[in-house]
């Protein structure tokens, strides 16, 4: 292996040239097959109308030359289009987003990516990006101008600790430094296009096919079918190009990642975590699997050994990868499993600890109807939806009742809430008070200090749902179970038709459109208010916690029903 990463540059251009040659051959072969079919039909027709002529199905050299020049032009056009704005197109297709500067977890990823780019030398300009999905996976992209991108899903950013994330980023940086990332990106760009177009045509045929009637409809259909068939041939051949993406490079990148991060255990743990979770199958587009650290689609071929699998799969068996890394760290898979169980136990213990203080409140407060309510603890009191700084409060054993803001400890608690940055034009849809920018699970949310509701932009929801800093009480867990169970029954019986009308329709704080009360998703049927104008979500008090709790403890709808 080369002494520094700067030296790893050889044979890169050679491999890419090879790819171009293969591309031209592909087009030529496809065009040749099409040419033969066309010729066959034409000759056949002529033969039918004028049986006296002699029939020749072969192509003349001039025709072959014509086909070759057509395929050459097609290949060049294809090349130009796929290499133009290479990274931008991938970013769009994968839905990757730039990192959020205000987000602590994102800041950590940004730092780690910068560390990795220091580690592999200054040749590449590496940028960190994030995929806003709950899946756990990571990918790398590179182009000819030495720009590179390391993308990590929100799932990975939030669920892995620093050393594990370092190892994953080091693995991706190793791909970039070794040059196989560039080759991979180009291959995917050249041959991944077909899968995309194919699936679009398929969708069109399935959904709109029946709408076309008459002769024009038949022609459109015929054209679509022919295109579909041609592309299918091309895609079938593109499968072979995957031969050049050998699974060996994953082993090599693992080894280099260990060289960079000096932490084989971190990478082993990260791979173990990724393999235990959803890796994004269905969410991540066709034909891009080879970009990722682990195949989003778990399949048998990847897990098998032998010549066949070595030739045709893009990723090596997960078990073997982890085992190699664990051997380096003098550890065993048993240790990882034990660690996972310990984490579960810790979560349970933290939940139990959270339960303790709630029963011991001594505060009473005067509600709107003029009744004394209580007892509450201080945090509970302040979180009450009807509680205002001007409410009357009374502490057991202290004698006199007083206004909340007159009490030093209460006013301090209230002040603490106001200290956040007030966002002038965002107002709580329930209380019509200013929303405050608050730190929550490492990112910022807009929170109403009076009703405790939270307003989240669309891309922040996934982040928060993944992160596990917050500990939830048994009450929340119980609520979550109950709600999921109840709502699953409701939507399976009534099929979404009528959600309860008794809730007033809320106005979206940012675009003032009416929000709709819906379930977060069919798997996690917790009611939330979603704005279909700006895709933001309003969570009433506890709704976010319940949803987080449901996801953290895997209370998916089906299991409970």
């Amino acid at each position, binding site marked *: 292996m080369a002494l520094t990463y700067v030296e790893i540059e050889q044979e890169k251009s050679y491999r890419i040239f090879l790819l171009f040659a293969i591309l031209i051959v592909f087009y030529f072969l496809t065009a040749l097959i099409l040419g033969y079919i066309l010729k066959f039909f034409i000759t056949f027709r002529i033969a039918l109308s004028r049986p006296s002529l002699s029939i020749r199905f072969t192509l003349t050299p001039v025709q072959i030359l014509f086909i070759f020049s057509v395929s050459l032009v097609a290949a060049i056009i294809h090349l130009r289009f796929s290499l133009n704005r290479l990274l931008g197109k991938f970013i769009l297709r994968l839905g990757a987003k730039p990192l959020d500067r205000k987000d*602590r977890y994102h800041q950590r990823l940004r730092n780690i990516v910068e560390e990795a780019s*220091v580690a592999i030398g200054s040749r590449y300009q590496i940028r960190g990006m994030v995929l806003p999905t709950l899946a756990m996976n990571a990918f790398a992209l590179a182009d000819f101008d030495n720009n590179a991108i390391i993308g990590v899903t929100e799932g990975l950013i939030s669920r892995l600790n620093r050393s594990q994330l370092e190892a994953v980023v080091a693995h991706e940086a190793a791909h970039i430094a070794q040059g196989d990332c560039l080759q991979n990106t180009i291959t995917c760009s050249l041959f991944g296009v077909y899968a995309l177009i194919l699936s679009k045509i398929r969708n069109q045929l399935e959904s709109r096919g029946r709408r076309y009637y008459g002769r024009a409809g038949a022609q459109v259909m015929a054209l679509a079918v022919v295109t579909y068939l041609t592309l299918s041939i091309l895609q079938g051949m593109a499968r072979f190009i995957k031969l050049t993406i050998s699974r060996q490079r994953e082993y090599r990148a693992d080894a280099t990642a260990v060289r960079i991060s000096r932490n084989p255990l971190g990478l082993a743990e990260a791979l173990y975590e990724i393999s235990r979770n959803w890796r994004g199958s269905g969410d991540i587009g066709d034909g891009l699997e080879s970009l990722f650290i682990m195949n989003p689609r778990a399949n048998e071929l990847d897990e098998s050994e032998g010549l066949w699998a070595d030739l045709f799969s893009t990723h090596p068996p997960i078990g073997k990868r982890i085992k190699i890394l664990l051997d380096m760290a003098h550890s065993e898979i048993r240790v990882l499993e034990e660690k996972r169980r310990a984490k579960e136990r810790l979560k349970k213990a933290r939940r139990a600890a959270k339960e303790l203080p709630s029963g011991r409140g001594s505060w009473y407060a005067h509600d709107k109807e003029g009744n004394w309510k209580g007892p509450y603890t201080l945090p509970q009191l302040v979180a009450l939806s009807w509680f205002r700084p001007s409410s009357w409060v009374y502490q057991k054993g202290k004698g006199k009742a007083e206004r909340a803001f007159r009490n030093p400890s209460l006013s301090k608690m209230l002040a603490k809430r106001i200290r956040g940055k007030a966002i002038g034009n965002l107002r709580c849809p329930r209380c019509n008070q200013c929303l405050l920018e608050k730190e929550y699970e490492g990112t910022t949310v807009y929170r109403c200090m009076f009703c405790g509701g939270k307003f989240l932009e669309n891309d922040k929801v996934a982040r928060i749902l993944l992160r596990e800093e917050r500990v939830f009480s048994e009450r929340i867990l119980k609520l979550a179970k109950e709600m999921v169970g109840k709502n699953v029954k409701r939507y399976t019986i009534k099929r979404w038709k009528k959600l309860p009308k008794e809730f007033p329709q809320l106005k979206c704080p940012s675009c003032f459109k009416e929000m709709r009360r819906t379930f977060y998703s069919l798997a996690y049927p917790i009611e939330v208010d979603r704005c279909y104008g700006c895709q933001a979500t309003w969570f009433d008090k506890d709704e976010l916690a319940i949803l987080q709790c449901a996801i953290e403890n895997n209370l998916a709808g089906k299991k409970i029903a």
Partner: protein
Amino acid sequence: MIIYVLIVVVILILWAVVTYNRLISLRAHLKNAWAGIDVQLKRRYDLIPNLVETAKGYLKHEREVLENVIKARSQAISASGVQDQAKAENFLTQTLKSLFAVVENYPDLKANQNMLTLHEELTSTENRISFARNHFNDWTAKLNIAIQRFPTRIIANLFNFKKAEFFEVEDVSMRRAPEVKF
């Protein structure tokens, strides 16, 4: 006869030029690698005042630790030359380590938002320094090998190329053999 001699002389001169150029480019790479370290060191110097400012309010009884950090920082800033710089940086790393060990005892400080951010930034910087150091040492080794090898050595001596110093980690705890207790 003269033609042969001329050919040999020309070849020798060509070799000398190529070798000289190689040494020059190695030295430039080394300088570049040092600049890479320097950037990261500056980054660390900039973070420390913030760190001290944040910790000051909480660590009223641990003045000494904070003063050590400040002292180490100013020493590191004024250091010159690879060896001195390395020594000063190692001292600074030590004091920072002891500061974070003390912070462990103050849960309030540990959970402070500022502190969390600063801790992350410092960790990142430490990692970057170590990666940049690897890079620098790789180039140092290359240059030193080139200078000491036989035919190249002549050119190196002729044009006064000097051996470069390594940026070494002087961590006492790393050197000492682990104690065994029964």
